[in-house]
């Protein structure tokens, strides 16, 4: 029963979190009934992403001013935005699609940037960022090693009582991500990590198929999220 109440709550939150600008642009829809994403990993989509041209993607990233927040080589210029270097192409591609069609509406700014992009553009940009190595430990934001160590149990073992699978089972031992669209998290800025998890926790972000991340985030405490943020920021490849 609890679970269904939670789900209703999440649905309500999603319904409330529609953004006015996105609305105006027709990007946001009745989220409660919409699938979490329109992207399906069909062979055609996967082939398209494999065909992504990193060089063209770099040109596009320049035109779209991606570097302003995500850095020229995909390493975020400031703590607020995600680093994209070394991110799985499928994940970047999916995020751009989700922004475009409103499945992810946490940043109206990204929706507006993604709207004019074609599928091929997205594949190219995804290939561009995937061509870099994963980012090093972020500079400028102090990483708390003690907090990071505390997260190890969750990362490696999870918590069966809370139906919490260990993070590494999907995101990899080194936070490098996994097929198909499980994102890499190593070297991500703690601020961005925390915000993402909180967005999943509150249901503000809901583009994870079958609530796979929302369910996890929901049972994590705020302190655990902070520990995990430090853990993943501190992972070097």
């Amino acid at each position, binding site marked *: *029963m609890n*679970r*269904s109440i939670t789900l209703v709550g999440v649905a309500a939150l999603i319904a409330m979190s529609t953004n006015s600008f996105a609305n105006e642009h027709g990007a946001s829809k009745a989220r*409660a*009934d919409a*699938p*979490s*994403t*329109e992207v*399906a*990993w*069909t*062979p055609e*989509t996967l082939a398209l992403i494999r065909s992504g041209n990193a060089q063209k993607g770099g040109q596009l990233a320049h035109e779209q001013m991606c570097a302003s927040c995500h850095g020229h080589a995909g390493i975020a210029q400031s703590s607020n935005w995600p680093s994209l270097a070394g991110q799985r192409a499928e994940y970047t591609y999916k995020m751009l699609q989700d922004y475009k069609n409103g499945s992810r509406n946490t940043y109206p700014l990204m929706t507006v940037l993604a709207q004019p992009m074609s599928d091929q553009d997205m594949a190219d940009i995804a290939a561009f960022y995937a061509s870099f190595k994963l980012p090093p430990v972020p500079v400028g934001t102090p990483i708390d090693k003690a907090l990071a160590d505390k997260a190890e149990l969750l990362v490696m073992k*999870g918590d*069966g009582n809370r*139906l*919490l*699978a*260990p993070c*590494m*089972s*999907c995101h990899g031992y080194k936070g490098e991500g996994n097929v*198909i669209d499980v994102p890499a998290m190593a070297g991500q800025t703690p601020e961005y990590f925390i915000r993402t998890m909180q967005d999943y926790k509150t249901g503000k972000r809901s583009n994870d*198929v*079958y*609530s*796979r991340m929302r*369910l996890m985030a929901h049972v994590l405490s705020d302190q655990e999220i902070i520990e995990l943020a430090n853990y993943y920021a501190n992972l070097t490849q």
Partner: protein
Amino acid sequence: MHVDPLEKKWLYVVGGIVAFTIAVQVYYAAAKGIHPPSNVQTIDSAKLHLSKEFAENNLGVHKNTDGSLDVTMVAARYGFYPQEIEVPIDTPVRLRIASLDVLHGLLVPYSNLNLMVVPGYISEANTTFTKLGEFPMICNEYCGIGHDYMYARVRVVPKNN
């Protein structure tokens, strides 16, 4: 080649038993339509979340007019969704489950639920839970490094709850 006549008789008997067993299975499969509990229907795994039956909002327990239950689930690396389901005891349940990605299995202890979830197919099983309590759902086909961690639960509660 010389075969002892007695031995020959026994060979016929054994052959007959084998043929009979096969015939029974063919009869039930072909004439009565009884199959092992999986692969009853095909579905595009990649578009599972975009399908009607396995849309996220449609997962879980549905009550039929005759009081029986339909349970719709998805197995995906690494979990079963919904993660927890609640069903009343001694109530017929029809479970339909599909995989979003790779081969999974679904086993619930103290029940006859033990089925393979093959990508591209919908697996179906009928069961009735006869013991109260919480039971884990376990993946019994190796599906990847998170295989051990596909935590999920069935809660069997008294009727009229």
